[in-house]
């Protein structure tokens, strides 16, 4: 299908958290493939394991209580889970970068933004402070920060949330990574700023050609950006296809429910309430038997309550984890 080289290949990743109240299978068998230069969306509700997947890729799961207990994460053909701490450190911020949800708290308040970006550069490139400063200013310019020379010596508290997220992006891209992970990077921002940041990321992706893994609960965000979308539910991928396919013909009842719950402005005004998926995300301590979505699924049968479905190719390139996929 996609004849680009495979950049990241996550196979059956399992990351559990061992808390005092019990074991939380935050990620329980996630598979995900990202090609070189591809923009992939990973979508799901809070607690579905999408952020844990991202932190697993760069191996920053807080341990204890978290632990990657199984699976493989191939990056350029090498399993990241087999790398030692030092090898992993060299990859972080160099080949794989990450930006986070909270721009307000993600920058160190006591160092200037220039310091913080330069540090990311000098950690991975053998250049001196003057060169690093030049490169930092270039990066600030690239992410659309006005007056980069002046901004260089400013502290994070002197900037707005949108500006700080631009700084985070500049820092993440300063070493030309092959993969940028964006973990809800626009969630905390105002809608207009959100759109600006998404525009910026899209522009930079075209310019620099890195792959992006966009993690979000917001389908509109991936609709704008992603080529491929994976939908996660309760620690597993339930559906994966090209963005077009997902929006045009969702096969998994969960995906279908999510899409139904988006208000559409093209439809005639009705007084009908917006459809919502019944019930709640299962408690991580008590995962339902069988398909994890079965308690909320309108199509659930006895089989769904007993057996767990495998993820299967429904049509070329379109994977669904469901016994009763919806035919469109």
């Amino acid at each position: 299908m996609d004849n680009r080289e495979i950049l990241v290949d996550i196979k059956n990743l399992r990351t559990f958290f061992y808390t005092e109240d019990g074991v939380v299978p935050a990620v329980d068998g996630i598979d995900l493939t990202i090609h070189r230069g591809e923009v992939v969306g990973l979508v799901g509700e809070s607690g579905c394991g999408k952020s844990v997947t991202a932190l697993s890729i760069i191996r920053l799961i807080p341990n204890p209580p978290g632990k990657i207990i199984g699976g493989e994460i191939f990056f350029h053909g090498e399993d990241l889970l087999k790398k030692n701490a030092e090898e992993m450190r060299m990859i972080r911020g160099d080949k794989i970068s990450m930006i986070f949800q909270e721009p307000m708290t993600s920058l160190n308040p006591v160092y200037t933004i220039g310091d913080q970006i330069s540090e990311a550069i000098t950690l991975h490139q053998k250049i001196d402070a003057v060169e690093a400063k030049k490169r930092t200013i270039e990066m600030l310019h690239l992410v659309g920060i006005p007056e980069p020379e002046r901004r260089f010596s400013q502290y994070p508290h002197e900037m707005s949330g949108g500006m700080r997220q631009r700084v985070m992006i500049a820092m993440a891209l300063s070493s030309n990574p092959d993969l940028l992970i964006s973990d809800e990077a626009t969630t905390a921002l105002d809608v207009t700023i959100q759109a600006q940041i998404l525009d910026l990321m899209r522009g930079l992706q075209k310019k620099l050609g890195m792959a992006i893994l966009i993690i979000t609960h917001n389908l509109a965000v991936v609709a704008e950006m992603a080529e491929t979308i994976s939908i996660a539910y309760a620690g597993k991928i339930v559906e994966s296809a090209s963005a077009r396919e997902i929006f045009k013909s969702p096969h998994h009842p969960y995906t279908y429910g999510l899409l139904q719950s988006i208000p559409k402005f093209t439809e005639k005004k009705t007084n009908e309430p917006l459809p919502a998926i019944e019930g709640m995300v299962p408690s991580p301590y008590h995962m339902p038997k069988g398909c994890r979505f079965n308690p909320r699924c309108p199509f659930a049968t006895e089989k769904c309550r007993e057996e767990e479905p495998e993820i299967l190719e429904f049509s070329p390139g379109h994977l669904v984890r469901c016994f009763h996929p919806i035919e469109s």
Partner: protein
Amino acid sequence: MRDYIIRRVLGMIPLILIVMIVSFGIFSLVPNPFAALIENPRIKKSDIQRLIKAWGFDLPWYLRFFKWFSGVVRGDWGPSLLYPGSLARDIISRALPVTVRVMGLTFLVSLAIALPIGIISAVKQYSMTDYIVTVVSFLGMSMPTFWFGLMMMMLFSVVLKRPSGMPLLPAGGIITPGLEEAPFWAKLGDRAQYLVMPVFVLAFSSVGGWARYMRSSMLEVIRQDYIRTARAKGAPEHSVINKHALRNAMIPIVTLVALSLPGIVGGAAITETIFNIPGMGSLIIAAEIKSDYPTAMIGLMLVSILVIVFNLVADIVYAWVDPRIKYS
């Protein structure tokens, strides 16, 4: 910033005046020390009257204050009641260096031990090291110095002896009689051995508190988002802790340190008494008991002025370590 400091320094003057009046006023609540002499049949009533008049105890307290204050303005702090024939100023200037030596050294030793172990026990929270540090900290904090001091004395001055039969460490005092005129290094070595036990006892009781402060401040910081950012850009662990976390964790500690510095001149009355150190703590208490207000007032004023000054120092240092703080 400069205007701010000037304003604060000017503001200190009325504050110090108020402290003077209030502490003098409280002092005058102590009964007239000469009144008790009436019970002594060998002292003539007229002599008692003369003493009372000479010391100003015939005046109401505020007039006595003015009498004392007009002397203070001219640099005359008055004679000591506790040590007849000496000036109160001379009594204080004999005790002050002794106390500064013991307390200053204690302060340095306890910070030098407490800050690193606080950091280590935060970074390795719930590890064996952390538990040991915690237990020893609480042991030090909860052990009364008078008991611990005596136990130390038992061990190092009674049980353990040098080959010559002398105690391993002197039980009390500050210098071996006869060595006052010894060469510098001999004198230094002599004084050092008198300092070992009191400094150890005092440091042991304060290390715990500092270590706990450092630990909790560090724990607070290392779960911040910007620490994750530092790791995500590939910073090595020592830089994450010593650069990104420590500077933030030091912000509250710096204030605490600055605010506790005036304690260096206040002395530690109990420990000084046990180790027979002629320092400020025991001197001020003795002066207070004997109504020696000229001596006690110098001690009180010294401590009060330092408290006021170091409050300003704390604020200035605070602005220096935390760029978010601005004074105008």
